[in-house]
């Protein structure tokens, strides 16, 4: 026995006197958040390096004579000749449920003044996306709470759906509405005690945005009670481009933790246009060759490797991505928009004209698509809204023709009337997502022509009255729709009776 103890003592003695090996370099120059370093002969690509004064950096350019590092932190303390050390570690961020309800920076440090985060696990910021074997097809719906989207452009858990449009068309609002809706669904689901209920946790990544916008978003989520299920990763316009470049990957790492641990998560990248601009800035400072619109050659890979990390995994959870792209003058054929359109599984296109006409959310039905299709829809929505997209497309076509002629046949007039009512019905105020059961009830009423006698200008008012009627007086029926998720004959009869009752009370 004493021999064993001696062996352990020897091992301890050997370890305590063991020399520590470090690989070092010296700063040759520092400019625009990028340090050029001599030495660091053992450094790896994407490895974290330690600067004096506690600042960290990432080795992004490994050249013959020097190493180019982006500095994450205060560069003002760094000077030529300072010693830099390799760490042997890839950049990692804290992950886990401890981050829920918190706002963090690109490195996972809290920025909300609520104290330190008690995270026990760390995930690398850069990770290879799941392969094809472990993936499962997208079939479970993720409700946005926006009727126009849930009924015509359904999103599934694990899908990547792009939100694209000009500035000020409501892109962020759609994303925030979706997060708020997840919060509402989580509350109802967790309170119900249903063991099969799978909550969706959200991650909102703000890249290059104004601080005031981020504060407004946090306030909106807090007011709606959704912040407790949400992580905010902020790399605002005031942050250096390195942080803006990293923030989406940090958010993805946080989302992956939920996915890997059998949970579902939603991640919003707001927005990837600014992310590409931040990456272009870094690349140009690193003197990487530039290509189209001065973006570096690997700008496609920048977004493809990020969005490929969203998936639904066999036997595990899912990570749904809602990347946002800002277009200029509605040009979807620009470099970054076409890249991201080709990577994602569909897009929600928002039009400035529709927005200015008061049609909000300004979803362009013709240009928006979900490649997952009705696989990510509950049966009830398919039953009441399956033909809506076609009807609306027909309406738009007819409306364009109707501008040139005054004489229209009765059928065309009826189609135009119905189309304009559907457009009115889909109008929805911001930060007010609708539960799916209520959407089914409203669409059922539309399908059964309950809104036909209502004047087009009063459809919004009538729809609000119907929603109020159902939420205040038909709660049991709504619960039944939610749990059954399909309309059988009995449920249809109940809905018909409820709509008749509403019609009588609304007309009087």
């Amino acid at each position, binding site marked *: 026995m004493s021999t064993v103890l001696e062996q352990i003592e020897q091992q301890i003695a050997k370890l305590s006197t063991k020399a*520590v090996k470090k690989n070092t370099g010296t700063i040759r120059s520092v400019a625009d958040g990028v340090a050029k370093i001599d030495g660091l002969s053992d450094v790896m690509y994407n490895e974290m390096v330690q600067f004096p004064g506690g600042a960290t950096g990432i080795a992004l350019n490994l050249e013959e004579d020097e190493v180019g590092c982006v500095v994450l932190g205060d560069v003002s303390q760094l000077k030529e000749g300072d010693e830099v050390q390799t760490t042997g570690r890839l950049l990692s961020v804290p992950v886990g449920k401890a981050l829920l309800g918190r706002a963090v920076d690109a490195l996972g440090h809290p920025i909300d003044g609520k104290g330190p985060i008690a995270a026990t696990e760390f995930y690398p910021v850069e990770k290879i996306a799941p392969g094809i074997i472990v993936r499962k097809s997208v079939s479970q719906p993720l409700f946005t709470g926006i009727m126009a989207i849930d009924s015509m452009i359904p999103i599934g858990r694990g899908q990547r759906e792009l939100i694209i449009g000009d500035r000020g068309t409501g892109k962020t609002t759609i994303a925030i509405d979706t997060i708020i809706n997840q919060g509402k669904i989580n509350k109802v689901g967790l309170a119900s005690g249903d063991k099969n209920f799978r909550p969706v946790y959200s991650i909102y990544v703000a890249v290059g945005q104004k601080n005031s916008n981020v504060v407004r978003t946090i306030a909106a989520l807090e007011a709606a009670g959704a912040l407790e299920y949400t992580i905010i990763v902020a790399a605002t316009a005031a942050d250096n481009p390195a942080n803006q470049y990293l923030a989406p990957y940090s958010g993805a790492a946080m989302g992956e933790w939920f996915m890997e641990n059998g949970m579902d998560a939603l991640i919003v990248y707001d927005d990837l246009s600014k992310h590409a601009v931040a990456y272009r800035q870094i690349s140009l400072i690193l003197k990487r060759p530039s290509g189209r619109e001065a973006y570096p050659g690997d700008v496609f890979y920048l977004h493809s490797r990020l969005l490929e990390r969203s998936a639904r995994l066999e036997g595990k959870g899912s990570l749904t991505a809602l990347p946002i792209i800002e277009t200029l003058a509605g040009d979807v054929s620009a470099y970054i928009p076409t890249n991201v359109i080709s990577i994602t599984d569909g897009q929600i296109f928002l039009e400035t004209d529709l927005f200015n006409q008061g049609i909000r959310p300004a979803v362009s039905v013709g240009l928006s698509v979900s490649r997952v299709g009705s696989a990510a829809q509950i049966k009830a929505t398919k039953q009441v809204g399956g033909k809506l997209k076609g009807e609306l497309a027909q309406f738009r076509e007819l409306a364009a023709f109707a501008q040139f002629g005054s004489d229209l046949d009765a059928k065309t007039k009826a189609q135009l009337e119905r189309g304009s009512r559907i457009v009115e019905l889909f109008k929805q105020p911001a930060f007010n997502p609708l539960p799916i059961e209520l959407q089914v009830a409203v669409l059922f009423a539309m399908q059964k022509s309950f809104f036909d006698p209502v004047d087009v200008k009063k459809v919004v008012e009538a729809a609000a009255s119907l929603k109020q009627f159902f939420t205040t007086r038909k709660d049991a029926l709504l619960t039944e729709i939610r749990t059954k998720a399909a309309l059988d004959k009995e449920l249809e009869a109940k809905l018909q009776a409820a709509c008749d009752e509403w019609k009588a009370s609304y007309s009087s």
Partner: protein
Amino acid sequence: MASAAKQVQQLARQFFQLSFEQGALSPERVAGVLAYVEKHRPARVVAVLKAYQRLVAAEIARNRAIVEHAGALGEPILASITAAMTKKYGRPIAGVAQRNDALLAGLRVRVGDDIYESSVASQLAALAAAV
């Protein structure tokens, strides 16, 4: 601008390659390179010489083990360190002793970019960072 910097680097690297004799840096060859530069004066001569100096300094550092010590360092210890480093790197390494009282006790060996540290000062620094 970028291509001019590249040309400087390229020329410095060519001079550096010419400074070797039988796989080792030769002082005669370095003197020859300097004489050539003095005579022909290439464009951006100062930048070229600075880049050349960096390459030569890095090469010298690669083949030299600077052994910093706080207490006494006998010749046999220096010789054993030099032998160990020569074996580790697979090339002849020359040992140079340098006194550094800031280490408090122990040794720090630097070979090129690599530092092997077993000093009280570094352990105190690690402790301070952990607290």
